[in-house]
């Protein structure tokens, strides 16, 4: 067995001196949230690093909706779920069709549409939120789930189209030509050649749109306001309205709310890292 040299130990120590602060910095806010979720009220407010009596009681209160702030927990969870799923599906349909049209069919004006979409991608979301709120009012969609779904599709599509177009451009033209020679119609090429080859990018984009919608706070908070229409993040924000907010319940609900996106992210990490980060900024 070879003993590590002094130089190796020094190098490892230097790395640890970076790694440990990074770990603490990353985990403290998340640990703090978890700590509140498993603490009874009196422990949560006493500043202990670990509760004397860890408990799942807070989760029980949330799941049984036994608090004024939580009386619509399941409805709001369902709203978040339906809206995220709808945004995922609609974004995929719209963006895949557009990317196929621009990249494979070379539709006239496709390049202009791509540039307009990219331009939209760079509008800061909070800036578009103000006129979007009034627009939805003019369309009569305020307090309707469609307002949030359509707003999120608007925000998710430009990036989706761009990533899918980049991916489609990489598919060889010969594929389409061969299919045409065999007498395939445009729709058959789309369904039988294009979609199967694009699957990894489609998974990445679907995940991206679902997470974007699930995590959205600002638009949800502007466009929806009835307690039974709002999504979970808006309900979490509403906890702050009271001075005596039950923090331990807020953190428990927040913890439950944060679990699905984290799980989805880690489940699709392979696609996300390849499909999104590489495409996010082209060097």
């Amino acid at each position, binding site marked *: 067995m070879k003993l590590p040299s002094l130089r190796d130990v020094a190098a490892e120590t230097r790395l640890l001196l970076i790694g440990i602060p990074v770990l603490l910095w*990353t985990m403290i806010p998340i640990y*703090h949230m978890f700590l*509140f979720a498993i603490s009874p009220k009196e422990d949560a407010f006493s*500043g202990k690093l670990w509760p004397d009596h860890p408990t799942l009681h807070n989760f029980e209160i949330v799941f049984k909706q036994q608090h004024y702030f939580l009386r619509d927990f399941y409805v709001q969870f369902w709203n978040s779920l339906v809206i995220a799923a709808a945004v995922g599906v609609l974004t995929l349909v719209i963006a895949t069709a557009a990317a196929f049209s621009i990249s494979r069919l070379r539709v006239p004006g496709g390049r202009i549409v791509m540039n307009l979409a990219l331009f939209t991608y760079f509008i800061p979301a*909070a*800036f578009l939120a103000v006129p979007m709120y009034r627009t939805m009012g003019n369309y009569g969609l305020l307090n309707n789930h469609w307002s949030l779904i359509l707003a999120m599709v608007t925000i998710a599509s430009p990036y989706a189209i761009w990533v899918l177009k980049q991916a489609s451009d990489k598919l060889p033209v010969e594929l389409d030509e061969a299919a045409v020679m065999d007498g395939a119609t445009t729709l058959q090429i789309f369904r039988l050649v294009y979609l199967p080859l694009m699957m990894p990018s489609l998974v990445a984009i679907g995940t991206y749109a679902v997470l974007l919608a699930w995590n959205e706070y600002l638009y949800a908070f502007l466009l929806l306001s009835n307690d039974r229409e709002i999504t979970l993040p808006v309900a979490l924000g509403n906890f702050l309205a009271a001075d005596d907010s039950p923090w331990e319940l807020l953190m428990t609900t927040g913890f439950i709310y944060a679990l699905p996106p984290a799980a989805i992210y880690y489940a699709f990490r392979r696609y996300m890292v390849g499909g999104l*980060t590489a495409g996010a900024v*082209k060097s």
Partner: protein
Amino acid sequence: MAITLSGDQSIPAPPLSSRLTPAQIWGIVLLAPYLLVFLAFVVYPVGYGLWLARAPSNYVALYHDPIFARAAVNTLIFLVIGINIKMVIALFLSGFFAQQRTWIKWLSVIFILPWAVPSIPTILSVRFMFNPEWGMVNHLIFSLTGDDGPNWLNDPTVALTMAIGVHIWKSLPFWTLILMTGRLAIAHDLFEAAEVDGASWWQKFRYITWPSLQTLYITCTLLSMIWTLGDFNSVYLLTGGGPADLTHVLSTLGIRYLRLDQLSLAMASIVCAIPFVLPLMYFMMKRLSR
């Protein structure tokens, strides 16, 4: 047999359907859904918003509103100082995470968490941590020193700094990951050759890493600036713009005016940012559409 759709005989153009191949017709049909979304939810709102902000009196009102001036300064601090600090840390950490170690691989999996979880619960968690009476930070300060800790979020400078901190906490993993991808794409034999020549880590960074990364780094910085202009959560959920409306940035200020039913002021405050944002947006669009 071609059917002329147009009644106007003076234009000798053939009917649309015979000039386009079936593939092109499908192209238009498939592009139509996005175009509809774009017209209804981008063109209309933006046009409507600009129209609302047209009266010069709005800008006079903004000029006389001290909260607007403060928000503009805060936004500049957020972008110029906050983003640059974030990107330098991301550049540094991308080198750390590019090391081939099992424990660093595992750490990178954990490190991505802030980006993978929604920002609302984590920002509220930080907010509670710094609560002056019951927060964990002041409890720790009390048990270590016997003194009461500061009223963190009640000081506008500290509150804005913490909002920047929360923003960095949330988006640092994303940019680190991107820069790491850039680093891993640099040919490894360059470093090996430098190693043989006895180059120091600074020389390796200065003459190999930085020249390959600088375009990506600058693009990331500009992109992050544009997106950060739209970062509503970091400020709103941590400070709510307070104390005394001193920590607003342009994104929260627009929503504040909206809540006060001053829609044209809200739009005008955004229009004021356009001269700064538009060149950045144009530059980014050019870069990405190549």
